[in-house]
């Protein structure tokens, strides 16, 4: 009998996307503020 899982992959994708956006946005923010140092 095949294993069945809850269908909630959309939440996983949303969380990974949010985390990536926050980290990349902060990295860009730091780059813009420190590029002239």
């Amino acid at each position, binding site marked *: 009998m095949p*294993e069945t*899982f*809850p*269908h*909630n*992959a959309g*939440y*996983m994708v*949303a*969380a*990974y996307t*949010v*985390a*990536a956006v*926050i*980290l*990349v946005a*902060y*990295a860009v923010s*730091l*780059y813009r*503020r*420190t590029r002239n*140092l």
Partner: protein
Amino acid sequence: MTLAQKGRWTTLVGLVLLAAVYVRALAFTPIERTQGPAQKIYYIHVPAAIWTETAMILVGVASIFFLFLKDARLDSFAEASAEVGTAFATIVLTTGPIWGKPIWGTWWTWDARLTSTLFLFFLYIGYLLLRGAVADPGARARYAAVLGICGMVLVPFIHFSVYLFRTLHPMPIILKPSAPALPGSMLATWSVSFAVFTVLYVGFVMQRYALARARQEVPHA
């Protein structure tokens, strides 16, 4: 190579490795049977949470030493660690509810762990606002140090809140006295992710510290 440039490269390496963590977590780590794919949020939520708390502990430690030694570099490090901790806290407070909705059936509940973590986030924001509001550098560093020490004191309460109160939040799976309760492949993915978040914290702090030092030397930089 300046410290800011070293930090930039470290951050870039961290972001590339983060992409590798995403591939490993999403494609090569088994799906947990009861929670389904949403359980994989754990691999980014928990490393971010650990660094949110560790960053505040480091703010507090640097602040204690600053109050004794009056070394401006300690104040700069605390400022840097606080800003990076705020970024990680934002990840924790967004990925947590995204996990909570399918697993608990609600985005948010006012239990001890969630509420105290939200309070830590507000403390981070308050710390950064305080630094922006006080013009005198000496007073700014002293006031911020006191607030940073208060934030550090909150961290153990957050970690042990799941033991002290009846909470909906799960008990620690990794940071507990006994061995981690994760299968080997899941633990490996989590460990790699934690290492990558560590690289990102270091890269971010190097850049932010360089910026803080530059502002101390030229106040309006």
